[in-house]
């Protein structure tokens, strides 16, 4: 886990990442609703609630879900 954190922090600080990405005028596709990472928020909220109730692990995309005593 510690290695992964270092890797992520490293990626942000490294100049290598600066080569990734686009210029502000190249964001036409990225700005579309269907390219937003939370575009289907309601579907994923329903899914997270169902899988939280039925499986042994939860969370990851956001917080661990829950707030229910789901049987």
């Amino acid at each position: 886990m510690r290695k992964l954190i270092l890797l992520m922090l490293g990626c942000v600080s490294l100049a290598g990442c600066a080569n990734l990405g686009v210029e502000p005028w190249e964001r036409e596709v990225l700005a579309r609703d269907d390219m937003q990472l939370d575009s289907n928020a309601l579907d994923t909220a329903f899914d997270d609630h169902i899988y939280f109730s039925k499986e042994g692990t939860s969370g990851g995309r956001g917080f661990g879900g829950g707030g229910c005593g789901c049987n």
Partner: protein
Amino acid sequence: MANNDTKIGAALTAATCGLLGIAPSTSVASDAAPAWDVDSAFLYYGESDGRVQDLSLSAHATRDFGDERTLGLDVSVDSLTGASPNGAIASDGPQTFTSPSGRKTYDTPAGDIPLDESFLDTRFAVNGNWSQPLARLYTISAGLGFSSEYDYQHIGANVGLTRDFNQRNTTLSFALAYANDTIKPVGGLPLPLAQMGDAVGEDQSPANRAGDSDSKNVLDVLLGVTQVLGRHSVLRVNLSYSDSSGYLTDPYKILSVVDPVTGEPIARTPAPGTSGPVNVYLFENRPDSRRKEALYAELRHDFSGKVLQVGYRYSTDDWDVDSHTLESRLRLPFGESSYLEPHVRYYQQTAASFYRYSLANLAPAPEFASADARLSDMSAVTVGLKYGRETAGGNEWNARLEFYQQKAKAPGEFLIGNQVGNTQMPDFNAVILQFGYHFKL
């Protein structure tokens, strides 16, 4: 009143502009723009064989106050009914159980997996979240959440901070959430690994219970990076840590006590004049702390208007439940304003260290044990399809149909005598049907 003022203001501006012979500026149009963006949906979730059914209504509303200040509100109501596996194993003979209230009994026919049919619940949940810029390149957010069921209450708070780098192509986010949940089981809190007793009268306390309620606290920490990879791709990677402490046991789950040689349930006789279990069952007990770590990665890529979404999660915890989840959606636009979106998901987990198919009689009792199939070796598959269509007014309605199948397996080292090759796990299939409407107010 504010709406009227806006309309009057817009009308006056339009009239003035008309008199002056100039076109109204765009700021007038944005003043009159819809304030709320609402995503609403109705969901049906139904398991096979009369098990859990859920009807749910949810709405997610956001309001943009300009300057990247947004308010998000979520409201959700759930109605749950149906039968839930109680953790006991199927037996060659009929079985009787005391209901969670401790005042009634229910029966399971020979050969069937025992299900508690008294499962009935209504859940109400509300969340609010505020987000705004803190300084150039920084955004801060804070939220509160609350949910309530007849035997469970949740209150939670969260804060988050994001920082953009590299011409906003890289975003680093950090978030914290804290929750305090209170559980008040029907019939009281069972004593850990105590025996399920006979049914008692209205004026008596059920056997082997200690107290009415308990609580748990959950701390979540999330560190994320979002990276634009190119004009058509964006990647998110999250690392999360979750620390739960307090009452983590399921008060309604039990384990069968079995003969250490044959693996068959140990018989008991209810007290004269009462009804009660005819086999020995113990209430489960889980550790009072759980620490989870997860890695989550999600990629979105556009192929000339088609959007592929692939997500993967690895989760590990100190209960020894390790899981892998792989999920993908592909959004396929067609016609002028419609899309189809197939969805597949695969989930697989290992059993918790204290998972037991049953407990051997006379063996030294373990400190922790649970026969909850959600803590066993398990895999699950979801396959679904969503259809959406945009209306002339810019709103969208959509429908989603999915099938979920779960298969569990008891780890072989815990099977005793006749159980080897004869385990019955409470596997199930479920249907998810959802109708949604996305509109602006």
